[in-house]
């Protein structure tokens, strides 16, 4: 079973008022779910479908379309390395390789202690300060191997 906490339910009610149709609150509602539990379970999709009076399939369709919505838990620190051209030119492949080695995981995997997960993503709008990655909500830019090590140390 999934339910919004009373705080998130209140937030959801506020969000509804921003739109003239209920369904428009779907992306914000899914963000709230993900904030509450870290990912979006089948139960949560059914719950949101009920709140917004849309077919569960429509919710599923949306969750699977957007890469930032997770259907499974990710690591406590979810690392997303930009692999697009400007970052690649400045060495993003070596940053990814280094992370794989340091964390002992491949792309799309989580460390056994659940602390870190690693993926490659497309351009994050930070091309002038590449190579870069995002850890949860935070950008880390102008990366070097040394800087990556320092960031990992601080997160440990």
């Amino acid at each position, binding site marked *: 079973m999934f339910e919004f906490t009373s705080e998130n339910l209140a937030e959801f009610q506020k969000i509804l008022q*921003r*739109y*003239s*149709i209920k*369904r*428009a*609150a*779907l*992306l*914000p509602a*899914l*963000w709230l779910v993900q904030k509450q539990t870290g990912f979006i379970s089948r139960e949560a999709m059914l719950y949101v479908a009920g709140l*917004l009076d*849309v077919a569960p399939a*429509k919710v599923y*369709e*949306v969750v699977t*379309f*957007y*890469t*930032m*919505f997770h259907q499974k838990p990710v690591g406590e620190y979810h690392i997303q390395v930009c*692999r*697009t*051209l*400007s970052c*690649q*030119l*400045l060495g993003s492949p070596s940053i990814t390789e280094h992370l794989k080695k340091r964390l002992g995981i491949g792309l799309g995997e989580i460390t056994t202690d659940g602390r870190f997960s690693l993926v490659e*993503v*497309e*351009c*994050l*709008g*930070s*091309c*002038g*300060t*590449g190579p870069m990655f*995002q850890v949860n*909500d*935070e*950008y880390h830019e102008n990366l070097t191997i040394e800087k990556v090590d320092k960031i990992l140390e601080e997160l440990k």
Partner: protein
Amino acid sequence: MEQRLTKNFKVKDSHRLEVSRAQGGYQSLAKLFQMKPEEVINQVKEAGLRGRGGAGFAAGLKWSFIPKNSGKPVYLTVNADESEPGTFKDRYILELDPHLLIEGIIAACYAIGAHVSYVYIRGEFYFPMQRLQAAIEEAYQAGLLGKNILNSGFDLEVYIHRGAGAYICGEETALLESIEGKRGHPRLKPPYPAIVGLFGCPTIINNVETIASVPYIIQNGVQAYRAVGTQKSPGTKLFCVSGHVVRPGNYERPLGYPLKNLIFEDCGGIRGGKKLKAVIPGGSSTPILDANDVETVLLDYESMEAHGSMLGSGGVIVLDDTTNMVDALGNLARFYAHESCGQCSPCREGTGWAAKILDRMLSGEGRPKDLELLRSIADNMAGKTICVLADSLSMPIWSYMKKFRGEFEAYANPNH
């Protein structure tokens, strides 16, 4: 040169209302509310402001497409999806001068008769989103948003809508679908959003930088706006320089500014003493320029076109002479294959196929027929789909293979 969009970027706490106001923020509103909405539209038309999101469509003209008295609400949606590789400018407006954007939103909404505006921000931009959210709250508290703004009788609500990771949602109709709670699938046009847009109502979609350019026009007038730039491309624009330069970053320059000066003076030239090989001038989809083109091309819509490319979003990616062009094109093909929404078969199949061929060539398994195949894939994607994402890969395929033919031939004939 006078900075218009970036003038507050280096001011301490420039994102705060108090600081923005001390720098002259929101002063254009007094003039705005003296004008009739049609006058605002005309002023923006005469100023010649062109959309900064990529296509360069005249902003005032677009606004004039909103039907009068349709009886439906009108919406302004601001495009802060900033997802075209090489582009990183809207982010700094959101982070460093969110009040300039809000001031522009008020003017644009007043002009088109919108009382609700959504700013669509890509999901990854968490910090810029927080900055804008805080600025919106400050503006409400100061009576700059909400009911009866500064006693003008004009009401306006501004909301942020957060995306969730999908390049295609930068395409304006996919963006509308995304606000409506759906997958970001571009719509067939016509009807255009100005007639049938968000929730079926007349809607204007403009890029962040376009909207942020409006307060200057209202405050200083058409002549002042046109004092820099060219006749057909007036005003200033943000150019985002990335890749192999000494000083990458955002540069506000008048349109018509030489690309060569941008790269070799402002950005300090090529890193590590290398030579310039090529430049992608306006975001990843724009045709590539070689070192010869860079000698003469100017940063305006017309000169770019004359050189076979486009000004696009202003995302300038600089490549030095060690860059492998097959690898660069492969990177972009993978990007477009990943981001295709999948509605149209030429795009869904073509982008993936091109990426596979380039990957195979890069792994040393190229075949002599590959170049012809790539060209025919590009031919079969362009102009045949619902949106121009497919064309966005066709253009690089054609131009890279034309300008750097030898490199592609070598990969297609690995045993020679």
